């Protein structure tokens, strides 16, 4: 059964349309990542679900109930803000207890619930601390706990780890995933980091200009991007503009068999799927630079017209600057008019 349903939601500000006829259905216990560059409307969408913005048109329902014009305090959603927005004049316990007090729960139960949730986020015994005595990661955990303690139907996370360093971010997102799975809580997670989305989500919704580009499982989004935009946004991708003629894609000496009708096309191939082979004679391209990362090497390739491509190989020592090579894409996709016309596998 779907917990959240967004139908045809549009949000216009005076000059721009942030979210444009958006549709999404989220199932019970699902963790959906809204992924997109800044300005793609993902945060606005989340704020509409939380009740902080009202859609210009469209319908949002939670558990089958229309909440489109319900104010945030009456919605069964819990929001974790990027800036964590802890109330600095209250200690950790009071931050968590505030919502429970508003619900007039007995003192003992408030205490029990708060302590249980603090334990859950790994901050057992931190109740008496002032919020400014906590590290960035701990503050974000308190913000998460503050939402969780009210047992919301839907947890909304608005780039919660954006202000943390890489290391901490990775650890926290694993914790969030664990907690989410344990509580089976329906979660929407806004991020502009593809790693985060790939690591966390049951489903990724890639957004661009207020619309959905693709909504699918992470591995599908990664392996079978629906559009060149998704292809370019998730992971590293070589995107080559060219044309298909007689079943062959061609761009400046680089040719790949693409069984599709004649016309312009964009070829997308991941560095790890772009094999290179030493060429006799001129070859398709030349090696521009080799960067050794130890576990693997990235080879920068230059086509005759100057276009650069990347290839990932196991061994750096086999290659050197200026060496003529041939390109053999193992897996690739071709796009025309923003849709895939061919996938190699």
């Amino acid at each position, binding site marked *: 059964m779907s917990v959240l349903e967004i139908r045809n939601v549009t949000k216009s500000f005076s000059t721009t349309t942030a979210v444009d006829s958006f549709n999404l259905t989220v199932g019970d216990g699902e963790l959906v990542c809204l992924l997109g560059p800044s300005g793609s409307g993902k945060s606005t969408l989340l704020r509409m679900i939380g009740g902080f913005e009202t859609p210009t048109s469209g319908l949002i329902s939670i558990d089958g109930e229309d909440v489109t014009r319900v104010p945030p305090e009456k919605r069964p959603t*819990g929001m974790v803000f990027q800036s964590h927005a802890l109330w600095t004049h209250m200690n950790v316990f009071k931050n968590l207890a505030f919502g429970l007090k*508003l619900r007039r729960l007995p003192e003992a139960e408030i205490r029990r619930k708060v302590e249980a949730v603090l334990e859950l986020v790994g901050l057992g015994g931190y109740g008496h601390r002032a919020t400014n005595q906590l590290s960035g990661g701990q503050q974000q955990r308190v913000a998460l706990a503050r939402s969780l303690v009210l047992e919301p139907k839907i947890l909304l996370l608005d780039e919660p780890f954006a202000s943390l360093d890489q290391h901490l971010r990775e650890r926290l997102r694993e914790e969030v995933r664990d907690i989410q799975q344990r509580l089976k809580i329906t979660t929407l997670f806004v991020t502009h980091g593809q790693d985060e989305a790939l690591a966390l989500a049951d489903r990724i919704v890639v957004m661009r200009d207020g619309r959905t580009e693709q909504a699918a499982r992470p591995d599908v989004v990664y392996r079978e991007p629906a559009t060149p935009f998704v292809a370019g946004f998730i992971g590293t991708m070589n995107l080559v503009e060219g044309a298909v003629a007689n079943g062959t894609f061609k761009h400046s000496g680089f040719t790949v068999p693409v069984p599709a009708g004649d016309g312009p096309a964009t070829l997308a191939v991941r560095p790890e799927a772009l094999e290179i082979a030493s060429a006799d004679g001129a070859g398709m391209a030349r090696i521009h630079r080799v960067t050794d990362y130890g576990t693997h090497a990235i080879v920068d390739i230059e086509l005759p017209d100057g276009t650069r491509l990347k290839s990932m190989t196991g061994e750096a020592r086999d290659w050197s600057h200026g060496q003529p090579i041939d390109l053999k894409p193992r897996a690739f996709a071709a796009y025309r008019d923003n849709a895939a016309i061919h996938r190699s596998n």
Partner: protein
Amino acid sequence: MARMLTERRIDWTGIFFAAVLTLVIVFPLIVVGTWAFTNVWRYPSVIPQEFGLKFWNQTLARADVWSSITMSLSLATMVTFLSALICLPAAYAFARLDFPGRNILFFSFLAGHAFPKFGLLVAIAGIFLSLNLIGTFWGVVLIQLVGTLLFMIWIPVAAFQSVDRRMEEAARDVGASPLRVFWSITLPQAGPTIAAAILLSFVGTFYETEGAWLIGAPQIRTLPVLMISFINNQPVIQYGAVLSVLLWIPSFIALLFARRVISSGSFARGFGA
């Protein structure tokens, strides 16, 4: 290469300023303080012949001192109360709501500072004359109330604006009504700065001399006004000294509590720096 001034040197400039400012700023006040606790100090002795609290008893026994203390306190309390009552909601509106003419109305509070103050007081007094407000308690309240407007609007506006919107949204999110958010989140967050503004306006009103003198005298006699008449007409030096020490108490409290707000940059920016 940039020369670094990290080596430890004797800060002669600092010592010079410290010495001169101590002499010029602290010394006169010490002299006044000394006079207040002096029973006998006749020329040309460098130190008083006799210390004591004799004149405290005499000053505090005077009816005019007590009546002006009461007058000053009730004026300052009334003005601060009214000012907070009308300015704090207005400050919240300026900080958080949108309405036509918001900016021009906000800057209109500067008008009082664009003119020489005493000239403005005389112009207001001209109007009060026809309203029969001269020499009345409420006339002085009104004129002092106007003097507090700029501070009591601008400082709280900055305080409200600096409260993170997300904090308020987070409170809405956990189920607080807008009114509850204001009471439990916005006000406590902006509280210390607003308290400082209220304290400053109380102290400022307590010491306000010119409006009280022009509008209130002779019926309304505040402590500073009484002090002027002591300076002009009172041959006993110690009365003035004791009154000075008494007068300085509110300032001392303000010094303790409002210092951080004043030395912060936002305060000076309020003056256009």
